[in-house]
């Protein structure tokens, strides 16, 4: 750990906690199941997604993808393509202007969202199978696609590192993983394991997965002269995209406007700057026309990364009581030859269980594949599969109920950092979930339930995901007519951002929701961070809270210019927002409405812009969300087919701000986890590094018939150290799901499957 971080951490520990926010107790809008404000525009088609903006004179671009994973382009004949109908331009490394490589993804003060260091179209080198080697611009998308299909570069292929498995012996320990040490240890884990009677030692593998949001990635680029650009891009991070594109093309960041209010499913796949955006801007610059670039589904597979494959070992030794005496979690993930993202699969056990000794470590290898990236709960989703499967195995070894084993290892403090938990009610979540599921009726013995040819089993697993908060800016304005505007560059990916933030601002300002307008998805608004890490809701909420305080202070001083004012002499602490204005706490009928204050002051509005401070609280406390996942599966005795028949997810995620949108997020996460566990896998051909199933027909996401009814319960206990007492809820849902399914399958069949996806051939 570097010294600066150490200093900051020390500071964080002595820093006083934020004042308790009284809104944590309020329930006028917050905590209500309010329907999504973006619902109606979406179902009526009024909401525009990136590719749908009507732009005059729009032309279209298509990408040519490499068909080798490593080597060089020796020749690229574009003459036929150039003469194809409608073609305006064909761009390759031979004629593309020099562009800068965007710096790697960062959410800090200089945001950036680079995904690969490969010099797209500025090099003859090939680093992955699917790397863009040319872009064709034509009048229609069909003409562009057709002309692109006429380009067949000649390559000098070299042997690439195509196979993850074969790359494992070359794995190295990265310097750090998201600021954390790649390896943490205490005591002699190996010795304790060896000498232990009760232990498990299992190796797990998870395959690569790809993003398959329904909205394909898409961009429209419109230049205004040579130094200004408007970009409609399906981005989870408008500020990062704007800064990165500005860097690539040598523009001022404020001259790049990225518009992305609606994202049709992100899940991390739209957090980084993927090559299509840069190529769209390039195509527009070269042709001098507004250009749209929408890669096909197969194109998205080739140029947008997904989840790394992993190999993980989990070895646990326990005393007869079940108390863990040592815990080993170690393994390897992959990144591409040109990015740095060792996915943090080893994070869950660092915070989940009380352990006397441990060794938790991870390594990473480099392969010639498209750069890996964030995918819903990166790290925790695959990490919990290994850890929670191993714990289930240990429960059988000890003849203990799997819930009971976990409860016997509940820690008082964070087992690795030693920090206090900010809010941890996993025990309560287990109690609620077990109750709802009827866990006590589950027979302990494996293979003891059957319905005809179907073997039935029930499984459980813990899920966990950190609380992240990121520096975020917001502007808040109260107008003379008593309405409010809240602005920040954040995204609505369908999770309910607009709704929840409107609920919050209305509650905070004591306005009806109709009088609050929340504007977002535009990089020219005050900068929000990436809509990722389940951080957006609380990060924006804090910025809005602090901006609102500033606006109210300003209004108070305006009101106090009038010595007759009911608020005369009141300090900020003496008043609060109520009844569409500012009122005294001790005399609730004494105060003035916003309209009255502004009218008297002769002002059109009062506004404040505010940027939040660094999330020091996450260094002082161990801050996490938790899930207790319960499921029932049916496994066909003969064919090995698995059907998930029942699900209860019990969540401890602080206070739930909107049960309707939150429950959708939990369910969505669980459904994605069912796919991860049973059906999804990106098939990279180890001979060529090529993805062989780049379509929704062959890459099997769950269909309706694969998804049972899902019951959700939650503790709804406010975290005193987070804005609004809330946690993010976008990612926790998928964690623990694969393990719960694998554990239920074991309960049904006696078979412990340690490699995902659990296809029927593994159970025959």
């Amino acid at each position, binding site marked *: 750990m570097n010294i600066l971080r150490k200093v900051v951490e020390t500071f964080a520990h002595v820093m006083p906690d934020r004042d308790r926010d009284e809104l944590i107790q309020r329930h006028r809008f917050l905590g209500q199941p309010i329907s999504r404000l973006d619902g109606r525009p979406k179902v009526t088609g009024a909401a525009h997604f990136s590719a749908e903006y009507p732009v005059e004179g729009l032309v279209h671009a298509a990408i040519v993808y490499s*068909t080798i994973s490593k080597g060089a382009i020796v020749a690229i004949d574009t003459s036929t393509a150039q003469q194809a*109908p409608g073609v305006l331009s064909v761009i390759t490394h031979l004629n593309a202007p020099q562009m800068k490589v965007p710096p790697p993804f960062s959410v800090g003060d200089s945001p950036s969202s680079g995904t690969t260091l490969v010099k797209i179209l500025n090099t003859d080198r090939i680093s992955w199978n699917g790397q863009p080697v040319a872009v064709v611009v034509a009048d229609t998308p*069909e003409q562009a*696609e*057709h002309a692109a*299909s006429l380009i067949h570069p000649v390559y000098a292929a070299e042997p690439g590192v195509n196979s993850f498995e074969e790359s494992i012996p070359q794995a190295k320990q990265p310097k750090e993983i998201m600021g954390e040490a790649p390896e943490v240890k205490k005591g002699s884990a190996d010795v304790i394991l060896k000498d232990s009677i009760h232990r498990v030692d299992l190796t797990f593998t998870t395959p690569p997965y790809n993003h398959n949001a329904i909205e394909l990635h898409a961009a429209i680029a419109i230049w205004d002269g040579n130094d200004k650009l408007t970009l409609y891009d399906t981005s989870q991070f408008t500020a990062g995209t704007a800064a990165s594109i500005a860097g690539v093309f040598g523009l001022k960041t404020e001259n790049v406007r990225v518009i992305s209010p609606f994202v049709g499913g992100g899940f991390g796949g739209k957090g980084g700057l993927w090559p299509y955006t840069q190529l769209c801007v390039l195509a527009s610059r070269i042709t001098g026309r507004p250009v749209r670039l929408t890669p096909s589904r197969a194109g998205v597979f080739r140029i947008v990364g997904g989840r790394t494959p992993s190999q993980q070992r989990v070895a646990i030794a326990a005393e007869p009581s079940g108390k863990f005496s040592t815990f080993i979690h170690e393994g390897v993930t992959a990144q591409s030859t040109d990015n740095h993202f060792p996915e943090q699969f080893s994070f869950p056990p660092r915070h989940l269980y009380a352990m006397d000794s441990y060794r938790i470590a991870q390594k990473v290898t480099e392969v010639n594949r498209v750069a890996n990236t964030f995918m819903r709960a990166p790290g925790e989703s695959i990490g919990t599969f290994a850890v929670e499967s191993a714990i289930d195995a240990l429960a059988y070894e000890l003849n203990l109920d799997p819930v009971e084993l976990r409860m016997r290892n509940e820690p008082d403090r964070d087992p690795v950092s030693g920090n206090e938990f900010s809010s941890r009610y996993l025990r309560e979540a287990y109690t609620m979930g077990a109750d709802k599921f009827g866990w006590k009726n589950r027979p302990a013995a494996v293979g003891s339930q059957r319905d005809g*040819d179907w073997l039935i089993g029930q499984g459980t697993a813990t899920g966990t995901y950190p609380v992240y908060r990121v520096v975020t800016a917001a502007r808040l304005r109260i107008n003379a007519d008593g309405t409010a505007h809240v602005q920040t560059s954040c995204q609505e990916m369908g999770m309910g951002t607009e709704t929840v933030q409107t609920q919050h601002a209305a509650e905070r300002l004591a306005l009806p929701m109709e009088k609050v307008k929340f504007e977002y998805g535009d990089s020219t608004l005050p900068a929000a961070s990436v809509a990722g890490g389940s951080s957006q809701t609380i990060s924006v909420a804090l910025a809005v809270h602090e901006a609102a305080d500033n606006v109210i202070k300003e209004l108070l001083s305006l009101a106090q210019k009038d010595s007759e004012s009911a608020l005369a002499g009141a300090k900020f602490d003496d008043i609060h927002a109520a009844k569409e204005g500012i009122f005294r706490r001790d005399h609730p009928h004494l105060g003035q409405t916003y309209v009255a204050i502004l009218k008297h002051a002769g002002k059109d509005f009062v506004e404040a812009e505010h940027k939040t401070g660094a999330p020091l609280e996450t260094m002082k406390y161990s801050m996490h969300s938790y899930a207790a996942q319960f499921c029932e599966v049916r496994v066909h005795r*003969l*064919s*090995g*087919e698995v*059907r998930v028949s029942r699900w209860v997810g019990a969540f401890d995620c602080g206070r739930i701000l909107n049960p309707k949108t939150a429950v959708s997020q939990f369910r969505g996460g669980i459904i994605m986890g069912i796919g991860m566990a*049973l*059906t999804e896998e990106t*098939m990279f*051909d180890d*001979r*060529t590094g*090529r993805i*062989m*199933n780049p379509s929704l*027909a*062959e890459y*099997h996401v*769950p*269909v*309706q*018939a*694969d998804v049972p009814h899902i019951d959700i319960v939650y503790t709804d206990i406010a975290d005193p150290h987070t804005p609004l007492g809330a946690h993010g809820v976008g990612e926790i849902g998928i964690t623990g799901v694969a393990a719960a399914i694998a554990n239920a399958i074991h309960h049904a069949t006696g078979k412990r499957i340690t490699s995902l996806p659990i*296809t*029927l*051939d593994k159970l*025959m």
Partner: protein
Amino acid sequence: MNNFTYLRATDANSAVNLLAANSTQGAAARFLAGGTNLVDLMREGIETAHALVDITRTPLADVHQLPDGGLRMGALVRNSHLAAHPLIREKYPLLSQAILHGASAQLRNMATTGGNIMQRTRCYYFYDTASRCNKRAPGSGCDAMEGFNRIHAILGTSPQCIATHPSDMCVALAALDATVNVTGPAGERSLPFSEVHRLPGNTPEIDTNLKPGELITSIDLPASTAGLSSVYRKVRDRASYAFALVSVGAAIKIDNGTIQQIHLALGGVAHKPWRATIAEQLLRGADATSENFAKAAEAELALAIPRRGNAFKIELAKRTIIAVLSELTANEGARQ
């Protein structure tokens, strides 16, 4: 996708004539039915037809009874319509079931009987023009042989190709002794269903025994297979909307514990819908016992050749055959 000429046929003859008139050496023309397979393949650059003859307006979309008690189904009957047809549901429920196990409701609304028979394999390497594939580019090699072949064939394969025919509907047609009626430049003829699709041999690029320019006009089902007890069982990677890893269609008649009539076909295991003639032969006249079913399944799969990814299909096929026949026996027993 290349530019192509779009032509519309009004009846079977005009379809055949338009196709012949627009086919030249090396430049293919194709019949366009539901388009759910052909259009995808054209988009991927796998089919490169320069002319399409749309046959969806031809009057080949009805189902009617034949004088001998059989049934005739037009080549343009939509899969969804066929599956829901009262005569099919009453007399050949196996066919109805098989169709409903295929694709999705939206696709079945578009797909036609003729198109379903003529659909091409879902082999990953066939679909990827950057890969070597003897079916798509004869003589280029077969990347599936040492690649991803979990979904590939175990029976009747050749060193040139291990692709499967992906249809569910065709498994039922194979089991039910269907006949396919075609018309072409050389006139009309009929093929027993078992002779429609081919094994890959040295010419995997040729899927069927239809001659160039021949149009399927209808499919007949005989009275002899009407009203049998039947089951279609499809084993796949998700609950719906996935092709069969293995499927089994069976229709049976049992009298006093003895198998009088048996029609058994497999899907997902071969380059054609696989009529299990070896198993049928062993079972016809035999006792309907699980030992006999196991023996028959064993014999049928004796010549199966596994690859790295698909060895499990051998056992899966055997188990599924046994399970389906056992279920039918139990049903029959309950009926008697």
